[in-house]
């Protein structure tokens, strides 16, 4: 199976362990969500995978070959980071041109189309673009490049709601036409949740959980109803979060709903964002 595989990848910055023995795989043709709070190690992990940083320990493989400084394998990965790595004076058109030169098989017509859809003038210099468009030109580059692994770090940073929806649409269309591995690294997950096939949660530099999205969403449920009844029901259960408004209370519970649930309580599906926040809170990880 073709994949990007990390085996016990660690990265230290001085005394800080940004990554602590991370082992995981991004398999061919799947859409992944790489979740984690700020500082969880998402960006460091992506930087280590693409050789922008050297891991302190461990090994990264792409399709079974060592990735570090291996151009043949690195060319299979396009990584859109949050950092501006393109020269300030470079126009978007030039970015497209050089990406085509380096990666080969860049779909310029498609890229131009996307520019039009998003209202981006490709003659502009990258440094002259607003935050939103700085994300957009990189997203367009990522969609139009012919690489089997696309890593997107906080892809919708600065995008308004319309552009975000447009991006998810284009991403799925692109994926349907040319299935490849897409990794969405983010801390704002709810609107992308239904796009994901698998979810990896990083917490304090470690992999806290790696499940299919469906599994993860079914690892818990919500109950709502009268405060007193909800309180009685959740007693002794693993409660991820609770919230009450007036006399009504909603609680997120880890586990499967029970048969003997009181009729007066309503159950619902868990919200990925809430689950993620609850899990990554202090001691939240002990629940899993």
């Amino acid at each position, binding site marked *: 199976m073709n994949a990007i595989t990390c085996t016990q990848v660690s990265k230290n910055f001085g005394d800080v362990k940004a990554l602590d023995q991370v082992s995981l795989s991004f398999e061919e043709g799947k859409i992944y969500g790489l979740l984690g709070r700020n500082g969880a190690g998402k960006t460091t992990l992506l930087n280590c995978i693409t*050789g922008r940083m050297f891991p302190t320990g461990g090994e990264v493989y792409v399709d079974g070959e060592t990735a570090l400084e*291996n151009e043949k394998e690195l060319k299979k990965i396009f990584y859109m980071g949050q950092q501006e790595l393109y020269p300030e004076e470079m126009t978007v058109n030039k970015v497209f041109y050089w990406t085509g*030169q380096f990666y080969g098989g860049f779909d310029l017509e498609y890229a131009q189309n996307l520019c039009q859809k998003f209202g981006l003038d490709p003659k502009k210099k990258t440094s002259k673009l607003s935050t939103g468009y700085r994300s957009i030109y990189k997203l367009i580059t990522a969609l139009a490049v012919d690489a089997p692994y696309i890593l997107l770090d906080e892809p919708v940073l600065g995008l308004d709601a319309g552009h975000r929806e447009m991006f998810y649409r284009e991403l799925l269309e692109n994926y349907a036409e040319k299935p490849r591995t897409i990794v969405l690294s983010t801390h704002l997950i709810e609107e992308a949740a239904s796009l994901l096939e698998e979810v990896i949660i990083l917490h304090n530099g470690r992999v806290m959980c790696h499940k299919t999205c469906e599994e993860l969403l079914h690892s818990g449920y919500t109950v709502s109803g009268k405060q007193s009844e909800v309180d009685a029901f959740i007693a002794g259960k693993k409660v991820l979060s609770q919230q009450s408004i007036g006399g009504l209370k909603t609680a997120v519970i880890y586990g499967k709903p029970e048969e003997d649930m009181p009729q007066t309580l309503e159950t619902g599906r868990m919200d990925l964002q809430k689950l993620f926040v609850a899990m990554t809170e202090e001691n939240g990880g002990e629940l899993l």
Partner: protein
Amino acid sequence: MKLTSKYYLNSLRNSFLMAFGIILGLSLSFGIVLRSAQSENLDYSISGFELTFMIFTLVTGLVSFRESFRFFQQNGISRKSQFTGWAVSLLVLSAVEAVVAILSGRVLGLFFNYRGIFNQLYQTLQTSGNPALLLVQEFLWVCMACLVLGWAGFSFALLYYRLSKMGKILVSILVPGTLFILLPMADQHFLGGSYAWLLEKAGMLITGYLPGGIYPMVPVAAALVCSAVLAVLSWLMMRRAEVRS
């Protein structure tokens, strides 16, 4: 490597043409002004292409690392390809600069009293030497001077990139402080002029004015060795360079 050189040369082309345009314009205007003001007893000469190109190459070396490194990292290029790409590009740039400088000098020489840096330094050789051999020597001299300065700029930029904030401050203070203040002072009081003697010898080596005669190929060889040393140092620093925020 082919692609990385292509990118380097592409981004160098415009700034090189600009530098060339400026020095050409300056030489022409100076030449015209000086020639029209010339009287019987005013001897004038103009020059400057070589020096301009040498400074240009130094600056190019200084600014070439960081931006290109980040750009290449974005595009999955190995550090090795980046390094070889730079080495090839710098060699090409230096050779082009030498050719352009010599050609422009010769062309301007038809109209003005233009004398290139090589002619000025090795005037005594001009009358006696073989003209073809001198031309080759001039080419090598200018080319190697540019090359070594390019490597100096590049390795210095890399050193700065790799150093921590504290390291940068230390280098910025200690290096010039040692060379220009501490050593000359020590020389005066304790070393008994040996530092000045060393500088003098270094100067002689750099120009090729040796006790036994004038050898323009000595500085060429020295520049080549220095370039090689700087290239090795650069590679050692580049090998483990990381993209930082």
